[in-house]
């Protein structure tokens, strides 16, 4: 028999057989690991699906474009297309304009209409139709016939469109009747927006939208040669308001945002797995401890310490492996829910994605397998190392060595305290943009630190409460206190699991509450107004379409009833890299009715300058992303001019697709001349006696049907609703972590009972009643859970600071006002204790499973 073969036979006898005889315990641990692994895998797969959908979309839309020509805040003159195509540095140039449109008389969601030149675009993007007679006929139809489009397959399917049918599409301008001349087949542009896309000729696009003479952007493939030199040469030959950027820039900024979200959810889901590994530790530790005699026999028969180490290590790893396999069906149940939740959150917060389903990524499967097995193996290292120290002479010993030396506890405590002390400096380290790696590293350090100091806390608690407990609750409570004092690292590990779960719970409760309260304040102050109006589909089209003069005149006609705050938004990149919204707003009326939530800067002193357009206020996200601070100068090229204004203040803002910069509408008018609005908010005058709904009805009656309108209170309610939905996934993950921790408590207490089978039965044999023994176990559970809960609360409060002021800042660029939801915490503390004590039930049942006489006879 080979050495390996022998090892595995030994593994079967020594590890698997006892494991099989304690099925309940093993299954509990496996269930804990499986839940953790399933959550981790499902979350990763769900975010991966969103990321893939985003990549597919960007790949389809960007195609082979290398550089993009655009005008910040404006559109590119179409005459540049011919100029670029004649440029020696340009191999291909394709004009692109896009807008979201809606089918008239339908409730279906808006879809992307992409206007392009099918001839010039051929080198850049691939697409084909399912039913074209020839490859050319589809694009030829688009060019030949005004008002034709080719639909993505999903779009055609959802609307039940057949080739040749007509439909009316709505946009900010006049509706237009289109005829569908084909449906895109798979691949290329058909993947854009998950198939919710339609292509039309650039001429049709301009005739529909009215944006004649200009295009959104011109995508380029450069002639062979050095890119940097080519870009420089092009810049020289282009008008100064025109910028040229790598085509992948949009893709990169979107990818970074999703990646940050992926990391946050991965870490949160890893917490479940992390908590699950405490179970592995407990079980391996129990097995190692309860089989000391057998281990000593094995050693006396010639097994090396290394082999003993390997046996227990493989046990931990096997638990990880089996847990991972069990996680597969659990993931199948979790995934549909997570897929929907995650894709909705990504679409709401970052970039629109359409996730048709998930594809099994080999990398994600491998990652999940490796992480699960590795952490389970790692959890088994310490008990395995303990087991390998069992000397052969222990065969003859009546009672094996137990307990943890005082010195070791001190060392652990010192290391734990050092780790906790290192948390804040580590959290403050600079990390990669958008990825809160230092914050998460600090979180892990905090968890481990607290787990390491828990033996000392238990020891101190046991020591200090034993005597009072005897007076208070009699001998069983005293014995429980003494046991907790001496229980050492094994109990501490389960306490560590509880600390982790409670800390996660507390910190997330605080973070979500703080976030919501701050968002609520922001919504009430900054998103103030009784009625918000904008051109049709303005929001989904990034407010690019100005309102028509008729629409503006209509609003003015109601100026006796409502005060109008006009605004104009531009979606821009600051320094060509930071996406943000530049919003010009009539400051005076706005500040009379609402306000910004100021973080830095003197709100009162800055107000005149802000109203007169002598400065800007920037959001915290924008400040963090760009490094701009109060007093710095904000610079932005805009439609051929440049906005150059000092930063007057930093404000809180929670729009999710980058930062925002506010400045006075009058300053924009001075800069650009006649400026049309992209939206307005209306504040009812007291004298009008109208309600917001009446104001909206008045606008509708006077022909305002071509505008999007939303009541202020509905908008604010919608923002908070989206906020709550966004945290649905987080809350589910949180409860799963708590469930795994409860499993940990159940396992730990059962183990504590099983470990002391003989002691408990001896106590019974010398006169202790079963009630006294059960009371003792209950007190042990109470003490352990109390320590876990108390330490978890402290850890949670520390963690909440890291989450709010470090991880959110590093991930999304924002922080919140620190607000503790005391009522939720007050409710949760007894709840967690109750759940943990309920988890102690299996331990009660485990006491006296065997008759004491039988136990004693064994000796």
């Amino acid at each position, binding site marked *: 028999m080979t050495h390996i073969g022998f090892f595995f036979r030994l593994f079967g006898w020594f590890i698997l057989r006892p494991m099989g005889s304690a099925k309940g315990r093993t299954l509990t641990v496996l269930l804990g690991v499986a839940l953790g692994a399933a959550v981790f895998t499902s979350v990763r797969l769900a975010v991966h699906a969103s990321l893939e959908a985003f990549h597919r979309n960007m790949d389809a839309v960007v195609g082979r474009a290398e550089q993009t020509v655009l005008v910040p805040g404006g559109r590119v003159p179409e005459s540049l297309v011919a100029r670029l*195509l004649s440029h020696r540095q340009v191999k291909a140039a394709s004009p692109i304009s896009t807008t979201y449109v809606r089918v008239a008389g339908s409730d279906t969601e808006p879809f992307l209409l992409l206007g392009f*030149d099918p*001839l*010039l675009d051929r080198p850049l993007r691939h697409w084909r139709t399912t039913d074209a007679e*020839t490859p*050319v006929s589809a694009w030829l139809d688009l060019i030949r016939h005004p008002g034709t489009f080719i639909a993505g397959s999903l779009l055609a399917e959802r609307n039940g469109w057949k080739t040749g049918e007509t439909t009316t599409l709505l946009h900010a301008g006049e509706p237009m009747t289109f005829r569908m001349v084909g449906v895109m087949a798979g691949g290329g542009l058909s993947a854009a927006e998950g198939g919710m896309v339609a292509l039309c000729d650039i001429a049709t*696009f301009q005739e529909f939208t009215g944006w004649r*003479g200009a295009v959104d952007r011109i995508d380029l493939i450069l002639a062979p040669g050095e890119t940097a030199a080519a870009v420089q040469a092009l810049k020289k030959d282009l008008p100064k308001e025109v910028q040229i950027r790598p085509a992948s820039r949009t893709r990169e900024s979107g990818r970074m945002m999703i990646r940050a979200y992926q990391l946050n959810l991965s870490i949160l889901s890893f917490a479940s797995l992390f908590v699950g590994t405490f179970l592995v530790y407990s079980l391996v530790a129990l097995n190692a401890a309860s089989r000391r005699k057998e281990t000593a026999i094995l050693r006396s028969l010639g097994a090396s310490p290394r082999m003993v180490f390997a046996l227990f290590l493989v046990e931990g790893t096997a638990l990880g492996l089996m847990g991972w396999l069990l996680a597969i069906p659990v993931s199948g149940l979790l995934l549909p829910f997570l897929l929907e939740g995650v894709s909705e959150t990504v679409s709401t917060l970052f970039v629109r994605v359409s996730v048709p389903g998930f594809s099994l990524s080999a990398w994600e499967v491998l990652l999940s397998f490796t992480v699960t097995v590795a952490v389970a193996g790692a959890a088994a290292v310490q008990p395995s190392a303990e087991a390998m120290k069992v000397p052969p002479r222990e065969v003859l010993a009546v009672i094996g060595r137990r307990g943890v030396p005082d010195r070791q506890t001190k060392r652990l405590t010192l290391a734990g305290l050092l780790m906790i002390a290192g948390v804040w400096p580590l959290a403050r380290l600079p990390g990669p943009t958008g990825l809160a790696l230092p914050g998460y590293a600090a979180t892990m350090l905090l968890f481990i630190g607290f787990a390491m100091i828990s033996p000392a806390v238990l020891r101190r608690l046991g020591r200090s409460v034993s005597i009072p407990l005897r007076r208070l609750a009699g001998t069983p409570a005293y014995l429980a206190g003494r046991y907790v004092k001496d229980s050492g690292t094994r109990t501490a590990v389960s306490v560590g699991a509880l600390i982790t779960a409670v800390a996660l719970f507390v910190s997330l409760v605080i973070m979500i509450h703080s976030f919501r309260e701050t968002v609520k304040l922001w919504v009430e102050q900054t998103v103030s107004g009784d009625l918000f109006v904008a051109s049709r589909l303005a929001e989904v089209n990034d407010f690019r379409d100005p309102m028509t003069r008729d629409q503006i005149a209509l609003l003015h006609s109601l100026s006796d009833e409502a005060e109008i705050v006009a605004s104009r938004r531009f979606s821009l990149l600051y320094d060509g890299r930071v996406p943000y919204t530049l919003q010009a707003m009539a400051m005076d009326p706005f500040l009379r009715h609402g306000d910004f939530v100021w973080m830095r800067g003197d709100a009162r002193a800055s107000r005149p300058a802000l109203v007169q357009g002598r400065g800007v206020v920037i959001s915290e996200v924008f400040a963090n992303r760009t490094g701009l601070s109060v007093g710095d100068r904000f610079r932005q090229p805009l439609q051929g001019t440049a906005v150059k204004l000092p930063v007057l203040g930093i404000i809180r803002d929670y729009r999710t697709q980058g930062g925002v910069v506010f400045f006075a509408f009058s300053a924009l008018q001075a800069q650009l001349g006649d400026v049309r609005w992209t939206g307005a908010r209306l504040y009812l005058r007291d004298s009008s006696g109208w309600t917001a709904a009446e104001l909206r009805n008045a606008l509708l009656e006077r022909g305002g049907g071509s505008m999007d309108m939303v009541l202020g209170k509905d908008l604010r309610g919608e923002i908070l609703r989206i906020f709550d939905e966004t945290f649905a996934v987080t809350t589910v993950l949180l409860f799963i972590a708590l469930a795994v921790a409860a499993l940990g408590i159940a396992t730990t207490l059962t183990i504590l009972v099983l470990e002391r089978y003989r002691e408990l039965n001896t106590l019974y044999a010398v006169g202790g009643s079963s009630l006294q023994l059960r009371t003792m176990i209950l007190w042990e559970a109470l003490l352990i859970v109390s320590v876990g809960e108390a330490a978890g609360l402290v850890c949670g409060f520390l963690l909440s600071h890291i989450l709010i002021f470090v991880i959110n800042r590093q991930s999304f660029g924002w922080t919140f006002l620190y607000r503790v939801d005391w009522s939720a915490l007050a409710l949760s503390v007894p709840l967690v204790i109750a759940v943990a004590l309920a988890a102690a039930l299996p331990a009660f049942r485990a006491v006296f499973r065997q008759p004491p006489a039988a136990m004693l006879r064994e000796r």
Partner: protein
Amino acid sequence: MSLCRALGIAWMGAALFAFISPAFGSGGYATVDGPCHFSFPRDHGAHFGHRTEWWYYTGNVRTEQGRRYGFQLTFFRTRILAPGAEDPPPEPSAWRTSQIYLAHAAVSDLEEERHLQAERIARGAVGLAGVQTDDGRVRVMLNDWSARIEGDTHRLKASDAAFSLDLVLTAQKPVVAHGDQGYSVKGAGPGRASCYYSVTRLAAAGRIGTSGALVPVNGTAWMDHEYSTSPLEPGLTGWDWFSIQLSDGSDLMLYRLRDAQNGTHSASSGTWVGPQGTARHLGSEDFRITETDSWTSPASGAAYPAGWNIQIPSLEMSLTVSPAMADQEMKTPETTNVVYWEGSVVVEGSRGDVRIRGVGYTELTGYAAPFDAPM
């Protein structure tokens, strides 16, 4: 007809005509059903009412050191909607047009046996492509490629990453109208015809670059201009077209329309142009073309003829035509997706008892795939 027409036909056949007009008929386009009565410079310009049109230049040039190059530059125009069939909106976009242009260019570096080629396509709008006629000057352009015609002078410009050419061509002979005053019949029925003329001999001078630097070159060139509406007769699979400039001062254009059995269609014809520019029409019965060699493209797998004997008894002319280099296959994935052979050839032979030599260009279509969509 210049058989650059084959290219146009190929594109039309493969792409447009089958879609636009599956049945034979003009469908509102201007038709060619009699003598064309050319008037210049007007007819150097575009004939927007016809469905298709092309301006075609080829030539053989050499540097002072004797390094030889062949070149071709062809502009195609096609109208994708018949006059009157358009239904533009009240305020049409500047991009709205029925005219589409494409162009192919190639330089054959005969010393290094490199065939460099490029293609362009764009609609005739927003300054991307078009034909402008202004005060007797005609400019055909597509992006930065152009052909400008002013009097007897033609200025060609085209460049790509791999090559560039900038040539001034000066007509050495008057314009020659093929067929009956330009009425060039292409099949059975009066409508199967095109208006077709050539400038068969132009002196070429200018610069060609194949490795970055432009080098001065001199030589001879050929120009065709043709426009038509009708599709080709069904059953034809391709064309062999020859433009030859001979050392005795005469020039020869011949095309052979092939059917599926490689037979010669009776509409095949040619024109012999004497040293003084006098033209003589050649019917299909007046000449015989025999293939003497073949070459298989490693890229497309198409087997092309690669050598010909041409016999024209009425002129006592016997010519041997050989490719100046084998691989001059054009591949046009970005525009027409048609594969054809268009290349420089060298000619040797005799007229009567006199030995003659020459250079020219040959175009071979329908060898990579038959043109079942006809013109």
